[in-house]
């Protein structure tokens, strides 16, 4: 009999306590964040979509090498002397840029947001932004192109680079021929040249190696 009434007491009291708790919650401020309008402050070192500042990119390809999922595709063209890369030809830290970057594509469908590409960048031009809403209806839409070079510009720069390379090759060939002719004309001169070589090896070495390369080609 005692158990019977204690059951009733327990039931009634627990219902009242429960309803008291829910009743109190009714007047509390909601914790909902109305997402598209209201946003949480993201943490300082959040890792979201990458951004590449092409003004600073020197096309060193280190980010693409560091990427564990190979989502960065990067192509470069050598700049001809006198040609200015970008607006000033310099990075914001004052380094000279020697490469045009006609393609710098990051495929965010592949990207794993590991931030490994950010650390090796020598000019700190690739970094994580706070943009995390970039869903797309097509996978192709997730490929982001950061280079602002047009196809014509790319073709032009390629032509220039090829022409320059050919010119250089010709010059070197001529230089090599001249060197060869001078070698055959007098052994004394050759000895002198050899002596010069020992004094200043780099230019000669370079010409030799480049000669070899040309021969291979």
């Amino acid at each position: 009999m005692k158990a019977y009434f204690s059951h009733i007491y327990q039931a009634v009291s627990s219902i009242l306590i429960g309803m008291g708790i829910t009743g109190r919650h009714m007047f509390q401020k909601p914790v909902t964040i109305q997402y598209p309008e209201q946003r949480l402050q993201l943490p300082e070192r959040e890792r979201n979509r990458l951004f590449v500042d092409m003004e600073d990119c020197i096309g060193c390809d280190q980010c693409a090498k560091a990427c564990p999922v190979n989502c960065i595709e990067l192509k470069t063209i050598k700049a001809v002397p006198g040609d200015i890369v970008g607006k000033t030809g310099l990075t914001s830290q004052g380094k000279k840029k020697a490469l045009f970057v006609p393609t710098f594509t990051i495929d965010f469908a592949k990207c794993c947001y590991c931030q490994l590409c950010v650390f090796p960048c020598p000019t700190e031009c690739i970094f994580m932004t706070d943009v995390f809403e970039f869903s797309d209806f097509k996978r192709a839409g997730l490929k982001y192109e950061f280079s602002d070079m047009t196809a014509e510009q790319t073709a032009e720069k390629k032509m220039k680079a090829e022409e320059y390379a050919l010119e250089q090759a010709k010059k070197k060939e001529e230089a090599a021929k001249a060197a060869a002719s001078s070698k055959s004309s007098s052994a004394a001169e050759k000895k002198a040249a050899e002596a010069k070589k020992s004094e200043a090896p780099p230019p000669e070495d370079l010409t030799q190696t480049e000669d070899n390369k040309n021969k291979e080609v």
Partner: protein
Amino acid sequence: MEEFLKSIIGDNIITYIIMPIPALIFVSLFALYAVLAERKVSAWISNRIGPNRAGGKMGLLQTILDGIKLVQKEFVSPVRSDRFLFKAAPFIIFTAAFMGYAVIPFSSLYIGVDLNLGLFYFFSITSLGVIGMLMAGWASNNKYSLFGGIRSVAQIISYEIPTALAALVVVMLAGTLSMQAFCVAQDGGIFNWFIFGGPGGLSKIILIPFMITACVILFLSTLAETNRTPFDIPEADSELVAGVHLEYSGMQFAMFFFAEYAQMFAVAGVIATLFLGGWQSPFGDLVPFLNSPVMQIIWFLAKGFFLVFVQIWMRWTLPRVRVDQLMTICWKFLIPISFVNIFVVALYIIFFK
């Protein structure tokens, strides 16, 4: 209102068609906004905001748009289901719930029909819904639906007993079964309501705890009859998926909700009539304006809405009971306690009235 209509139109069928129209409009609007209220209250209880996009900050158009969506949906009936019973069941449930409104006294001038057996009629007609539930469960050709239907029948039939016994206390005190007579009997302010023992001398203080108990028992057992949490084992989203609602789609599904919310207000109205003074103003005749027929509607709706709010509040507080617990609550607790209530009230009537 009945006399008024009869004086204009005459005593013919049109009068009796017009009579329930205000109640039907009220039930439709109430069902729409009770669904919204349910969602809002549940949101507030769990520290959320709830629907706030459609129709302003309170989401006032939410359920209307939901309804439009449901009307557009295809009516799917399962393979080898009993087509006729399957289609008819939700309408039978709603009809049963709506027929109860015939005896709900909204005001001293508006009641569908003031039967002298009003309360008896109410309890008998609303339990017709059981047939619809069983039909829906059986015709769905789905074991979960059938379980839901069977549980619903078992639950509603066993909870009929404490409902009737708790209401009997008031019937004994008022000496009537007419719903208008209950309201008239509680004339004269808040302390003459039956939850405080009804009109009478100082001796009625003895009655107060027993009347409150009776009110709570009636509230709990009607909660079980409308299949609301914590007694929603016929629906039981997590074990029976949704019970009898499982195979329904589109407007038929919406009909179940209409019926459920119609029933919620109907039982709230009956509790308000029996224990909370019906359409009586809590100030009695002190301020005659507050007891005018139009204000009576407001008082009655306020009491009904408060009880519906408590039903919703309870739903979002308590977990579902098991089947054995459900039967234990009914047969071991509610029925014996209501018998004790009847006994005490009977003794009071013999010795003090």
